[in-house]
C-alpha cells in the first residue's frame, strides 16, 4: 500500500467505525430516542407505562370536549389503528386541531385514560393556501386526507 492508500483506508476506517458505533448506540437507546409513542405502541406495551411518557398521534375528529368555564378538556388520540383518550387542563398551542398531529406528555392511568400535563402540536409537511385546503376538503367529504394532492385545488 502506498502512503496515500493507507490514508484513504484510515479515513474509510474512521467513518466505518464511527458509523457502527452510532448504529449500535442508537439501537440500544431506541426507546429513549423515541420522542413519543403512538397508540398502537402503547397497546403493544412498548411504552413505559409506569413512568411519564409522550403519547403522539392525531386528534380524532369530533372527540374534543371542553368543560365550560375551565381549561379542562378531553379528546382522543388515534393512529387510525388504536385510540387513547386524553385528559388535559391548560392552554393548547395554535396548531392543536382536530385531525392534526399532537404530542401529549403525561401518564397513563389504570382506567386507560392518559392524563397529560403538556400538549404540543405536531404539524405535517404539507403546505397550501386556505382556498386550496377548502377545495380539497370539499372533494373528500369535509375531511383533509392524509396525503392531500395539493395540485387538485384551484389555481390561486
Amino acid at each position: 500500500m502506498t502512503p496515500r492508500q493507507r490514508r484513504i483506508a484510515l479515513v474509510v476506517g474512521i467513518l466505518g467505525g464511527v458509523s457502527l458505533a452510532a448504529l449500535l448506540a442508537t439501537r440500544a437507546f431506541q426507546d429513549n430516542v423515541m420522542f413519543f409513542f403512538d397508540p398502537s405502541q402503547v397497546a403493544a406495551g412498548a411504552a413505559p407505562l409506569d413512568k411519564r411518557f409522550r403519547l403522539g398521534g392525531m386528534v380524532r375528529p369530533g372527540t374534543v370536549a371542553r368543560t365550560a368555564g375551565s381549561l379542562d378538556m378531553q379528546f382522543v388520540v388515534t393512529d387510525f389503528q388504536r385510540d387513547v383518550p386524553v385528559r388535559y387542563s391548560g392552554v393548547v398551542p395554535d396548531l392543536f386541531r382536530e385531525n392534526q398531529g399532537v404530542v401529549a406528555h403525561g401518564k397513563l392511568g389504570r382506567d386507560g385514560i392518559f392524563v397529560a400535563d403538556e400538549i404540543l402540536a405536531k404539524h405535517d409537511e404539507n403546505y397550501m393556501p386556505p382556498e386550496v385546503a377548502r377545495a380539497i376538503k370539499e372533494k373528500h367529504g369535509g375531511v383533509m386526507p392524509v396525503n392531500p394532492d395539493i395540485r387538485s385545488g384551484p389555481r390561486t
Partner: protein
Amino acid sequence: MDWTWFHRLASPPHIYRVAGTLTPWFAWPAGLLIVSALYAGLFLAPPDYQQGEGFRMIYVHAPSAWLSVMIYGVMATAAAVGLIWRMKVAHAAAASCAAIGASFTFVSLVTGMLWGKPMWGTYWVWDPRLTAQLVLLFLYLGYMALRSGIDDLGRADRASAVLAIIGVVNLPIIRYSVEWWNSIHQAPSVMKMERPSMPFDMLAPLLMMLLGFTLMFAAVMLVRVRAEVLRRERGASWVKEVVS
C-alpha cells in the same frame, strides 16, 4: 495514478487567483436571488391553511438549516481530501467553512425555536431532530476550538480533519431522524425524492432562497479561502507579487 495535475490545480497562487475571479459571479446572483425571494416570500406567497402567516418562517429557517448541513459536508470532504492528498489548500478550505457553518446552525436553531413556540407550543424539546442539530453546532464549535488549541498548523489541520470526518455520522442522523424515530419535527417538504408538498406560489420563493443562500455561502467561503491561503503563505514569493 499521476496526481500532479490535481496538485497543480490546488496550488495556492492558482486557487487565490481563481477564488478572486469567481467571488463576484457567486455574490451578485446570490444577492439578487435572496432579495427577490424575500419579496416573493413575504408579499406574493399565500398564507398557509394551518399556520397562517407564521409559515413564512420557512423562508429563513429551511435555507439556514440546509446550509448548516451542506457546509458540514463540504468541510468534511475538504478535510478528507487534505488528509489523503496532503493538500494544504484543502485544509484551508475546510478551516474556512467552520465559522460560516456554525453561524447558520445557530440561525437554524434560533428560527426553529421561534417557530416552535407558537406552532408546537414550546421553544425547545429534547427531540431527536432538534438534539442532532444541537450536536452539529457543538461539532462546529469543537472543530474550531481544536484548531485554535494546536499551534502547529500541520498538526491542527490533521487533528481537526479527523474530527470533521467523525462528525459526518451526524448528517444522516439529522436528515433521517424524523423518519427513524417519532419526532415532533415534520418530515421534509422539499428535500425528498417525491414531489414537494407545497404549491408553486409557496415553493418558488423557498427554492430561490435555498439557491441564494447556497451561492452566498460559496462567495463568503471563497473570500475566506483567500484570506486563509494568504495567511498560510505569507513568506512565499507569489504573495509578494500579489500585495505589492
